[in-house]
């Protein structure tokens, strides 16, 4: 029971942070798989079932732009931060630092 509760809360805690991490990683253009590997390399594991719907949602909101391109003889969809996404990322980063600062004091 305790482990389940911890796992649920951990996922909840990570959910919001993942959006920030994805936006930050997409300051440079990447396609889904390399993005996942890059995030994983920074300790932010994200499965494909979560990442791709999230990318679509962020694109619908105008925070990302994407295009299909061929690379290594395979078609891949590349994502990058839009100007609006860059502005939002800046605001979210400031918010994150403020929350982090407050939590550091509380914890």
């Amino acid at each position, binding site marked *: 029971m305790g482990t389940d509760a911890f796992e649920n809360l951990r996922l909840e805690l990570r959910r919001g942070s993942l959006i920030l991490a994805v936006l930050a990683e997409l300051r440079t253009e990447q*396609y*889904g*798989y390399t993005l996942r590997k890059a995030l994983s390399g920074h300790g932010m594991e994200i*499965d494909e*079932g979560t990442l*791709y*719907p999230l990318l*679509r949602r962020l694109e619908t909101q105008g925070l990302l732009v994407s295009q299909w391109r061929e690379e290594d003889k395979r*078609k891949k*969809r590349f994502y990058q931060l839009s100007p609006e996404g860059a502005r939002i990322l800046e605001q979210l980063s400031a918010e994150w630092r403020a929350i982090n600062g407050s939590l550091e004091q509380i914890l």
Partner: protein
Amino acid sequence: MESLDRYLNFIRFLLPRGKQEDIIAELSEDLHAQVADREAELGRPINEAELEALLKRCGHPLMVAARYQAQQQLIGQPFYPLYLLALKMVQWVLLPLLLVIGLMLSVFRPHMVDAMMQAVGNAIGSAIFTVGLLTVAFAVLERLQVKLHFLDNWRLSDLPKVPVIQDPSQITRSASFGGFAGLLFFIVWWVGLIRLPQLPHVHFLQALPEGFFWPVLLVAGAEMLLHLVNLFLPWWTRRRAAFRLVLDVCSLVLLAAIATAWPWFAIHMDAGMTADIGPSIRDVAKLEQVVNLSLLVSLGVMALSYVARLVQDLRRARGLPAYWNWLMAMFAN
């Protein structure tokens, strides 16, 4: 890669039309890249079991496809709390109302038991139908994303006055005193120390067998004693709740036994009472029927209240609050 195609085809089938190819192409690219990485790691092509493990980690097609749906829930915020409230009204107001009305009307039908069963079935059917209608209505509201202005523009004075939920473990002294006094009066009457004015020709409860005297006296006496204790120690303990739970069961058994002796009320006409000066035999029979049916309905209501009490006492005896929402609190005793 037949298994991979099968997996992707099933996801495609579940995706919204118009987005299928785009999503599958992207997902397929990711999965193929994962397979290629794994093969590079192993230094050989992956086998079926390894591919299956990889796809299982990715998730069931139903779950994968569901994440791409624009609407993730049938009824979400801010409609869900209102939907729950509407369901509670069906559960605690509409269903009991339909049951009571249906049961009362069925008492006057020729085949009473059949009519009662039909009334219960109709009430449950109507409640389920209403729940279905409410679900559809709220799902439509969610789909249309209707704006609920009253949730943004509200005033304190607009809020309904709901009953204050008192501490569920507390017993009001007035209830204990009322219960004690009522039962004392009943016992005094039951043992024959006082006699209520008797109507000539009227016989009430005479069909009850002799064996009822002591059980009724014992249950009434025990409950009176409990009221007396509650008067001085006005809070529920698990032990006292368990004691009343036993009394609830005994009372229900007694009520069931009394019900078997129905009809309880009869008017015996003397030979001297002729149709010229007194009521006709038909009128008397009609009166007997009305009184007996009314008494039967009262017994039914009493039995229902004992069942409600039994549920509450069961919860109290287990150390839980007697009720879990304000509607239940209205029926708490």
